[in-house]
């Protein structure tokens, strides 16, 4: 078990390393002086020179990479010339809203899609099944910002139930916090619901065809117990896997949703950084998001051991 965890951790390292190389090369393979790009459009020659020295830009590329990685390992992602603080500090400041939004989105998505997917598989070909499959194609196709404005228009402007935009930290009280997050989280969860419901349906459907389901029914188990304890439990691995893969969708969605709902999180930071051409921040955010994505999928891999006792390493 420990050996498995260690092996998985080791297998993750090359992926992280390649992500680091790609983000590093992003700037070096672009025409133009990386120091000038990193320093921003309004930088003085003096500032550019300072960045050139600190990154060792006059030295060969492999040496530059070494310097960059050693900065990275010390948690030093450089300094944002737009926000005038360290990028690592900036990310820490903006993490709260994004984490809250992401967590609420996943919670809503799982609570809605897993029961629906299971029921759809149970009544395969029935009205719920067809409705859910139709909805999932729609969910994949409707752009998240179009959906966001549709919901703002109906729920906030016409009905006046929830605030249009903005964010309140949890410190301001649970209700103001939730009130501002519900609409963004619902918006973002739609594509997630489509994704998870499809996979839940497919894997529960597969499990329902197994012999142990027939046995469970034959020994007179209640249908609910057959569905949850036998079918759904055996479908857990693909469901958790797709949630892990879906984190990439979530990150993309966060960038758009935070922008529409004016939430001061990492997604909003990404867009602001790109608009200001603030490359230290862009690099930092990409690295951060990608590492989170890889690590979440590592956790997903490790969870298989607990979800499926048949898996032994």
């Amino acid at each position, binding site marked *: 078990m420990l050996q498995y965890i260690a092996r998985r951790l080791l297998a993750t390292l090359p992926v992280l390393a390649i992500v680091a190389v790609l983000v590093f090369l*992003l700037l070096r393979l672009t025409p133009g002086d990386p120091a000038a790009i990193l320093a921003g459009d309004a930088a003085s020659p003096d500032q550019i020179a300072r960045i050139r020295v600190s990154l060792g830009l006059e030295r060969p590329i492999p040496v530059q990479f070494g310097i960059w990685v050693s900065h990275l390992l010390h948690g030093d992602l450089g300094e944002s010339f737009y926000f005038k603080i360290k990028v690592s500090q900036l990310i820490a400041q903006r993490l709260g809203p994004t984490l809250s939004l992401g967590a609420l989105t996943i919670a809503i998505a799982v609570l809605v899609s897993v029961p629906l997917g299971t029921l759809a598989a149970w009544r395969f070909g029935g009205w719920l099944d067809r409705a859910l499959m139709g909805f999932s194609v729609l969910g994949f196709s409707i752009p998240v910002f179009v959906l966001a404005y549709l919901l703002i228009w109906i729920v906030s402007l016409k009905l006046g139930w929830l605030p249009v935009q903005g964010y309140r930290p949890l410190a301001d009280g649970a209700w103001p916090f939730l009130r501002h997050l519900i609409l963004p989280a619902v918006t973002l969860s739609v594509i997630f619901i489509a994704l998870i419901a499809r996979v839940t349906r497919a894997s529960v459907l597969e499990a329902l065809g197994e012999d142990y389901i027939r046995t469970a029914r034959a020994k007179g188990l209640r249908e609910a117990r057959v569905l949850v304890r036998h079918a759904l439990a055996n479908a857990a691995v693909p469901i958790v896997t797709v949630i892990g893969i879906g984190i990439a969708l979530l990150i993309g969605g966060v960038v758009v949703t935070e922008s529409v709902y004016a939430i001061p999180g990492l997604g909003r930071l990404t867009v602001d950084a790109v608009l200001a051409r603030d490359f230290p921040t862009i690099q930092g955010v990409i690295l951060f998001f990608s590492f989170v994505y890889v690590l979440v999928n590592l956790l997903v891999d490790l969870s298989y051991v607990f979800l499926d006792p048949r898996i032994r390493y």
Partner: protein
Amino acid sequence: MDAAALATESAAVPRHESAWRRARRNASVRLGGVVLALLVGVAIAAPWLGTVDPTLFDAGSRDLVPGKVGDITTLEGETIRHRFLMGSDSFGRDIYSRVIYGTRVSLSVGLLASLLALAFGIACGLGAGYVRWLDGVLMRFMDGLMAIPAILIAIALVALWHASLATVIVAIAIPEIPRVTRLVRSLVLSIREEPYVEAAVSLGTPTWRIMFGHILPNCVAPLIVQGTYICASAILLEAILSFLGVGLPPDIPTWGNIMAEGRVQFNEYPHNVFFPGVFLAVTVLAVNILGDGLRDTLDPKMAKRV
């Protein structure tokens, strides 16, 4: 693919013919195909659909509600009466014309980005599947690329390169390459074990002929399915980039740009966001439905997987 090419291919591989015929009878393929054909028609016929030049504006016709008649100034400085079917934006530009011309941008970005991703993906996939020393390096590289969320790669590349139609297409295509590569590589690895490939190898057929004559034709169906999905996500991604203000320059009429311009006054004039939004959603939906239909009929193995 024209009819002649299709016929010769069908003669060589009889299994395909029935698959193509099945595809043409499939309801999803028909629905998605018809809607897409209509959109392509709209894109081509844009100048004759009651539109004006989408860059024209008139200070007197700002923020008109849909259906209102107002003035618009042509490039020659002439003022003409025009009915603003979808209203106008805060510069006094005709939303309807911009939405109709936006169809051209969205469809060409979708088509070109997916062709580009397919071309590079096929090249990398064939390389990885056939050249042993290349396999490890290339696939690790693709793993790393896949670990970076697509939207972030595209945003960063567009920011570095400065946005134009070409850079946006390339930036959208790059994050899609790893998935195509993986698909082609796995197809190559399974097809090269087939008896007919072994037979060809033992007859001394050169590697390139095996690749292009035996392996690639058998990848066509899954690649078309994959290409459709890439097309849908490319159209979405282009709209997202434009909407966030990091995509194509704002004077180019794209659905994302129209929405970005309209979001400022969303409370008073929601139609500036909704008209392009509906076009975008319908287009992506049509491509996805077409893809699902093609997947079910052309690539039954994949249909079972999803």
